[in-house]
């Protein structure tokens, strides 16, 4: 089973071998409201852990999506360009943003487990 991790900025990471799929959590999409625009990086872009990887805009505001892990962008979810509401409809699945080829798997240790993230959300509300 793929390893699911979370950040305090409400990104999720699903690691499968050397590639991590990244998106924003259901909590994040609900806070953002209706997503109307998603800006994705170019394939081949190198990002460091915590760098801006994408931008998501709702009717209310623009927010950055940070790379939870360092690596090279190998795939982006082009479907979001024409249907940004996909982020609201399926944030944890079809609404993914980018796939990154990891450069340092040890960085995963810095991220939260699903249980830790749920506890973190409980503190926020």
């Amino acid at each position, binding site marked *: 089973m793929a390893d699911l991790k979370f950040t305090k900025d409400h990104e999720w990471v699903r690691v499968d071998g050397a590639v991590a799929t990244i998106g924003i959590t259901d909590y994040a999409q609900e806070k953002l409201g*209706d997503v*109307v*625009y998603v800006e994705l990086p170019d394939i081949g872009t190198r990002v460091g852990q915590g760098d801006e990887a994408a931008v998501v*805009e*709702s*009717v209310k505001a*623009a927010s950055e999506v940070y790379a939870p892990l360092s690596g090279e962008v190998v795939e982006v979810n082009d479907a979001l*360009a024409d249907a940004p509401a996909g982020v609201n409809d399926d944030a944890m699945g079809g609404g993914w943003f980018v796939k990154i080829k990891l450069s340092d798997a040890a960085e995963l240790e810095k991220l939260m487990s699903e249980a830790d993230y749920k506890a973190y959300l409980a503190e926020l509300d």
Partner: protein
Amino acid sequence: MSDGSSETAASLATTPLHALHVALSARMVPFAGYDMPVHYPLGVLGEHTHTRTKAGLFDVSHMGQAYVMGPDHQTTAQALEGLVPSDIVGLAPGQQRYTVLLNAEGGIIDDVMVTRPADPAREGHLFMVVNASRKAVDFAHMRAHLPATVVLEPLETHALIALQGPQAVAIFAQHCPAAAGLVFMTATHAAFDGIDIHVSRSGYTGEDGVEVSVAGKDAERLARALLADEAVEPVGLGARDSLRLEAGLCLYGNDIDETTSPVEASIAWVIPKHRRAAADFPGAKRILQELDAGPARKRVGILPDGKAPARAHTPIHAAGAAEGPALGEVTSGGFGPTANGPVAMGYVARAHAKAGTALELMVRGKPRAAHVARLPFTPHAYVRHASD
């Protein structure tokens, strides 16, 4: 993302509809010192579209309401004309007008609605609605400048409720038949299911609709009577902003402020010919000079060519000159649900203000092509004639 509303809630003012917002599961945020609904469970997009297609109910009770009261219409209207550049003396009973309070330099202290009440018992009175964020400034300014015979009486406990959209007036008239007889920018005192109200056919969405001033104690009953209609949804400040942006209407503090003149703001139409000739309003020298020679900068509509929204404070450059100095900046911008794409407005140097002029917007440091567009982005649906 932060949600700082909870810790400050205690110091915020509330409107007479606050309990209703909470009961309707609104997301509440601080706005102009009030705890206000930014959206309801339907969400900003749904509320926006609902208002454009059916009817949306807005609580705008945070706005300032006041009567300016003198011995007769001529005296009161002349006194107010000393503070605004529009025709107030010429208002017919029941007529409403949009105007601006000006400072001595011709800058906009606030944009306001002025109504001459239709009720003969209110002879000599003018009803004003001013922005929430400006009411303290406006009222102090008016008190300081109105003559002793004309007094300002704020309606501190009244609610202001708007019902906007193509079905708004028909729904409202089921409870208040008098509303159906109003045309755009006229008003009357009336009864709504036996409740005393002052209703005007106006709004801030570009749609047909009404704005209703009602005693705070009656506000929830009135709002619930309207919400009982299945075509009515409550609408928060989020959609209020996207609706007014598509309608090309100014938001005080964003698009206009004490440094912008009505000419720069492209609302010089509030100044009629006879006031221009008389030059008898605050800041007349600057304003007439700008009318004559053209202002240095002008508020324009801006349509990004791509899909990226450009928000307030986005720098605007001439096409192909992203490296050079900015022409101005976006003052309001975002996604227009009815326009189905990004829409914005902002100030540009006059030479770049013509519709169709190519621009570049620096969105997060990247130049994005855009062009000057005519306002509004969504056609106004005002009912200007009784036969409409």
